[in-house]
């Protein structure tokens, strides 16, 4: 039963995504919608991403300072650990988990609401490829904007680590800067962007899928919105593991 259900949803998801990437009826309309989505996803999420990132960096610095206390590991390693843990893991993963909650649930509710209010039917009857018009701009916008948000998150997170470590006396300014500049591997940044792109596609497409096929009333819409977050989060964490294995193997 589970397998049958899984295959049903997987098949429907693949068909939806294939339909979403048919040639647009009018590129200018899709472009406008993509710009609107970029604004909603990017500018709309900037504050929450910044807020979370600063604390991620701060907590990482404080925790590692505590763990390294009394060991022979040099203090400047805290800066190095904050930088790498942020770039490799925390910035892409935590940012996208948060975006799944904010942007993903919003997308599922928006598209689901349109389904329930017959807006999607109205567009279908006009001859609009609704999967294309409603989903493609969201996925494309996320593909551009989420990596930018992740990069900003990484930067702010390192700043958060600095704020938590230097003014409080855990380490000196010179030590933190030395740590941040030590053992830098540019490939880690590539890994961060690979994760950001994969997570962006996952969280937008899964959320759109949940909204696009919603049936029933407000309870089902609420469930779709919750499912969008839950399934996006699970898939992001699964993809995180797979990417980690593939790119570090």
């Amino acid at each position, binding site marked *: 039963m589970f397998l049958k259900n899984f295959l049903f949803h997987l098949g429907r998801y693949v068909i939806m995504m294939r339909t979403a990437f048919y040639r647009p009826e009018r590129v200018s309309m899709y472009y406008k919608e993509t710009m609107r989505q970029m604004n909603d996803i990017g500018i709309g999420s900037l504050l929450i991403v910044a807020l979370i990132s600063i604390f991620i960096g701060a907590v990482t610095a404080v925790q590692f300072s505590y763990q390294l206390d009394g060991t022979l590991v040099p203090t400047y390693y805290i800066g190095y650990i904050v930088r790498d843990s942020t770039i490799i893991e925390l910035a892409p993963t935590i940012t996208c988990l948060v975006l799944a909650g904010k942007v993903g649930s919003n997308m599922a509710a928006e598209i689901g609401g349109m389904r329930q209010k017959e807006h999607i039917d109205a567009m279908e*009857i006009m001859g609009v490829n609704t999967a294309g018009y409603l989903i493609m701009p969201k996925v494309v916008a996320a593909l551009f904007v989420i990596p930018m948000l992740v990069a900003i998150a990484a930067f702010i997170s390192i700043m958060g680590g600095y704020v938590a470590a230097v003014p409080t006396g855990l380490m000196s300014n010179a030590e933190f800067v030395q740590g941040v500049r030590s053992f830098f591997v540019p490939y880690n940044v590539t890994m961060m962007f690979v994760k950001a792109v994969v997570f962006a596609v996952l969280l937008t497409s899964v959320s759109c899928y949940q909204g696009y096929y919603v049936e029933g009333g407000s309870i089902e819409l609420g469930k779709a919105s919750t499912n969008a977050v839950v399934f996006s989060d699970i898939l992001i964490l699964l993809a995180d593991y797979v990417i980690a294995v593939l790119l570090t193997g």
Partner: protein
Amino acid sequence: MIRAIDIFKSFGEQDVLKGITTEFYPAQTNLIIGRSGAGKTVLLKLLVGLLAPTSGKVFYDDVDFFALNKRQVRAIRMKVGMLFQASALFDSMTVEQNVRFPLDMFTNMTRKEKLDRVNYCLERVNLHEVNDKFPSELSGGMQKRVGIARAIVLKPKYLFCDEPNSGLDPKTAILIDELIRSITMENNITTVVNTHDMNSVMGIGDNVILLYNGEIAWRGDRDQVMESDNEVLQNFIFASPFLQQLRDSAIKK
């Protein structure tokens, strides 16, 4: 003309439509009537292709709709306008943007040409100075009229209306009916209206089919409705005790 031939539709074990064969004519308001759950909405959704039949065919003129590929279906849909029960106006767009949406999506008209067409359609449904308003700022009747304006903006050959009078007061309902009928006649449109409003039947019912338990129980026009002795039709028309009393007193007299 639209022809439905031997349409069956089932949802799981439940047979909703059982062998519907009928024709809908141009320049006429073709009404599908029946009680709630009779299959009216399912039939309408089948006619516009939002649902696929379990078996049977739908012809738009001579074109078998369900045998078409996606591109051909889109081409047919460019000729279709639909008014939804709840109007289905896009909340985030103004009235003008709503009506202009099909033009933006499918035509190469200039901005001015589009605006002229939008204004013409809004004036045609007797709406003035509402271009910049949002759907939430309009009354139910006005929303229906915007819905009609959007449905006719691409000059459709076929117009479908799903319970256009639901939620409206009787006077506004009559206005909407008259609007649908006059637009149908003017533009030689094949209009299919799904309703259970007897005022609509008597006002604009050029060609009426009555659905009962997924089958056509009666067909005719508005002049034949009162003369018919079809039991299902009579039960449908005189459903309320008030109307039954009126009928009985008329018979006594």
